[in-house]
């Protein structure tokens, strides 16, 4: 035992009490599975961002005729690929043309030389055999090839971007609509509330897939952006209902009364004072919604209603797998990818739910 008492010299610093979000994060962090889900989503984000450097046929960096270029960015946006390569008639094939046109050229290549949009020809890359349709996985085609001879691994890597972007953008749209409508309905109540509630009921009563199919059929040539908008415009009801409930609960609390008596304008009260307090529970249906949006995109692509063919999407690979059932690699890889992605988002949503639910919190923490 330490008998030698130290005289108190300085006042002990009182740690700042954790804020609400810190508290939620502290609870969230303790659970293993939600953290694993979050880690997997992080992994997907990395794959999606670096997709052109993981699988592609365009150099990540190259020096050509004395200038540095980044042709791989063309996978993210076609206009980011320098027009000089089109002028010099590369036609998408870089290794051969680079050295032919400029002997001093050098390049840093993606990890896997395969293209998500076209099949590679023989010796395009030294020693690379020509891609045949429906080849089983081997050392050149890690996940095999699809009916058009396109590498499935490259398609999967680039399809990650589609899956993530669809999830975030469509739920972003849904969240904006749902939170705004729910906040207005819950805060004002009265006839505004019953109007919004009726609208929610109308949208909820039509089965989602049916409404989406009908909306997609209206668009002449649906692109991935149309799909995201449609998924967003049909998926906001759950968020709106929850936001409305939270606002109903919060609008009679003291801090709102204080804000009103201070003469703060209504939009400021709604969005600056009440919304941050309602946000955490609302994140839960948003997280589950991202999982649902990814599922809907995959099932639409699977039904043949998805984005046009050149867009790499996990659902399109599955659709090819359905027509060639004996080719197991066309079903297994995208199927497992969709499963893990949806599972991760569900686990994160569940973790958030447990971390923000006051009933579960009081009993345990």
């Amino acid at each position, binding site marked *: 035992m330490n008998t030698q008492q130290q005289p108190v010299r300085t006042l002990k610093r009182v740690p700042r009490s954790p804020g609400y979000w810190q508290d939620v994060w502290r609870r969230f962090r303790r659970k293993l599975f939600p953290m694993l889900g979050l880690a997997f989503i992080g992994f997907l984000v990395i794959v999606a961002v670096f997709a052109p450097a993981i699988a592609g046929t365009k150099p990540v960096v190259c020096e050509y005729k004395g200038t540095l270029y980044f042709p791989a960015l063309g996978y993210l946006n076609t206009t980011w690929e320098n027009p000089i390569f089109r002028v010099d008639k590369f036609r998408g094939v870089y290794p051969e043309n680079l050295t032919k046109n400029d002997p001093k050229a050098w390049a840093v290549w993606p990890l896997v030389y395969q293209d998500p949009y076209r099949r590679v020809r023989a010796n395009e890359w030294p020693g690379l055999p020509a891609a045949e349709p429906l080849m089983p996985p081997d050392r050149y085609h890690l996940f095999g090839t699809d009916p058009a001879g396109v590498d499935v691994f490259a398609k999967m890597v680039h399809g990650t971007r589609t899956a993530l972007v669809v999830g975030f953008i469509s739920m972003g749209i849904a969240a904006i609509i749902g939170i705004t409508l729910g906040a207005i309905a819950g805060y004002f109540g009265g006839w505004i509330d019953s109007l919004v509630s009726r609208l929610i009921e*109308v949208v909820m*009563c039509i089965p989602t897939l*049916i409404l989406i*199919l009908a909306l997609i059929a209206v668009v002449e040539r649906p692109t991935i952006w149309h799909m995201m908008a449609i998924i967003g415009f049909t998926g906001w009801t759950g968020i709106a209902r929850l936001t409305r409930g939270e606002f109903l609960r919060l609008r009679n609390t003291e801090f709102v009364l204080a804000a009103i008596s201070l003469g703060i304008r209504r939009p400021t009260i709604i969005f600056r004072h009440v919304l941050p307090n309602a946000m955490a529970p609302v994140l839960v249906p948003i997280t589950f919604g991202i999982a649902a949006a990814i599922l809907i995109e995959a099932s639409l692509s699977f039904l043949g209603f998805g984005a046009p063919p050149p867009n790499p999407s996990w659902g399109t690979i599955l659709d090819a797998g*359905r027509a060639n059932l*004996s080719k197991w690699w066309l079903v297994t890889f995208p199927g497992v990818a969709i*499963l893990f992605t949806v599972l991760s988002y569900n686990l994160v949503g569940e973790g958030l739910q447990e971390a923000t639910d006051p009933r579960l919190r009081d009993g345990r923490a």
Partner: protein
Amino acid sequence: MVSYLLRRSLIGIVTLTLITMLIYTLIRNMPGDATTLAMSEMTDRAIKQEQIERMKAAYGLNNSIPVGYSIWLKNLFQFDMGSSISKHRPVSDLIMERIGPTLLLSITSLVLTFGLSIPFGLYASARAGKGDEQVLSLGLYILYSLPSFVAALFLQYLLAVRLNLLPLFGMTSDQYLSMTPMQKTWDLFIHSVMPVACYTYGSLAYYTRFIRANMEEVVRQDYIRTALAKGVPPRRVLIHHAFRNTMIPLVTMIGLVLPSLLSGSVIIEQIFAWPGMGRLFFESIRERDYPTIMGLTLIFSALTLLGQLLSDILYAVVDPRVNYE
């Protein structure tokens, strides 16, 4: 109660009108209509044009959207949902024909779901925190996240292509009509194994988790502790004291299941070429067959509203504290 029902029904009718108006406007705005698709095989241009005009007039495609909608509504009040443009038959006949196969899938699946999820859920809450419970819960969670079309493809690959145990798709074999009743039943059975499995596993996982979550809340109540303290056997506490109180949310869920009984699943019926309601809807969207789309939308939304009403009423029945007066 009567005034509550009346008010709910009135609101329901307004909602239904809004939904059908919305869907009618949507489908009339789709590019192309049923006639362009039906006539695309014809070669003679003059005849084609004349035919298209005749068809358009016959099916009311020349009317403006408000006029067309009010005609559809008027016919509906005479119990006439119109007739399909692409299939040349009354919509009500088509729907009657497709209801059977969908009900075969959905009712089997419903019975399986509730028959299995209640024991699973009780087992999971009885063994909470133990090894086997965690394996069961994780397995169910993975099943819950597995998209049905992925599961369907895996099953097709494994059971039909690889092992050749079950037929790949369809509801009956080609020689179905010449079979004896026993063979017919068997034929239907082996064809429905995979669709029913795909239909069931997701909701099975969902309801098991639902029951377990509700049980978890109930077992923390004081009266459970009291029951255990006075020496009631744990199993009896679980079933008699705890589970009966989780029935309240469960019963209200049953009302919400109602619409999915009839609507079927577009994707599963499409993969297994099952001639049900979901497939009918998918076909009619592709063929721009608007009387059929309207009929199906009406049925689905009416059932959804009815299901919500039913679940609210059931709520008052099972929980005497709830009162709608």
